[in-house]
């Protein structure tokens, strides 16, 4: 079980925490995002909602000023305090474009994205929009975790890589979103991948450092 503060601090962070880091858990509806967050979070997952009134986006559409509609988009999130000094926040985000438009800045400065997919027949297609959004909108390191449901038929990683059109270096792993160790393993793989990717970027390689 996730550790729960036992000092009666009502879910507050220890005051030794000075920094926070975000990880996005992204996937289509019902893929297990909130389940995974709940498996590892030290607080019961919280939900926050954002409401926007969208004005018609038509260019030169002077008659469209009354064409407003209200959109509500919910986001579930959880928290893990690491080493008493870093608060890791896990945000569950759906794949839809409108979510990213609304939660502008959510992906900014995130450590990476854990993409949850459901490979059962007829479910994988729902993930395509998620990957489109990752490629077009948010450029962050990501790993793909196949959430294993009781009736999930195992697929080879190569088969899945082809189906999802993933690059050879994108890690694919299995997980059980209900299981804390398995969910932590997926998060660990993501952060390791983010480190690997950042090591590959030339801008981060120190120049003229002699090899010891």
């Amino acid at each position, binding site marked *: 079980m996730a550790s729960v503060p036992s000092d009666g601090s009502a879910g507050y*962070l220890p005051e030794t925490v*000075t920094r926070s880091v975000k990880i996005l858990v992204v996937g289509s509806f019902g893929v297990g995002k909130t389940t995974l967050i709940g498996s590892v979070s030290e607080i019961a997952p919280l939900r926050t909602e954002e409401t926007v009134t969208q004005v018609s986006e038509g260019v030169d559409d002077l008659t469209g000023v009354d064409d407003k509609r209200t959109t509500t988009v919910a986001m579930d999130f959880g928290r893990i305090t690491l080493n008493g000094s870093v608060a890791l926040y896990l*945000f569950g985000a759906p794949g839809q474009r409108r979510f990213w438009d609304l939660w502008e*800045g959510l992906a900014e*400065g995130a450590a990476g994205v854990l993409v949850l997919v459901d490979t059962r027949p007829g479910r994988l297609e729902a993930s395509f929009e998620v990957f489109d959004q990752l490629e077009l909108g948010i450029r962050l390191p990501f790993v793909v975790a196949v959430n294993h449901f009781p009736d999930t038929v195992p697929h080879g990683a190569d088969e899945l890589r082809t189906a999802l059109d993933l690059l050879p270096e994108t890690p694919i792993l299995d997980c059980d979103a209900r299981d804390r160790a398995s969910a932590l393993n997926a998060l660990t793989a993501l952060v390791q991948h983010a480190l690997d990717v950042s090591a590959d970027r030339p801008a981060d390689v120190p120049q003229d450092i002699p090899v010891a």
Partner: protein
Amino acid sequence: MTPPDDRSGGYRDSALRPYVLTKGRARPSRNTISVDTLLIATDPPPPLPVSAGRQERALLAMCRGLLSLVEVAARLELPVSVVRVLASDLVDSGHLTARAGSPRSAQLPRDLLQEVLNGLRAL
């Protein structure tokens, strides 16, 4: 006897539009506050102006301990965008202290990623 048609149906006086709570502003006074920025009330707290609204008071009371902006919003059941504006003002006025959330840069520093990795492995 129940009135067949309650003309006040659907009216709730608590249904304040977000821009009322934020005094008409959609953007916070500072752009350094993000969803995971950590907030805590200044100790000892300077007195609030009498014009401070219920939401500001609730926000400050919630921040007697360290919480992220998004947690405060979820607990107060207010949109993050609204709490961001209110929290920004309270930081400006010295009532709240903000600790850096995620950097605005595209990539996290490697030492921070390494610290997260070590922390996850230690759980």
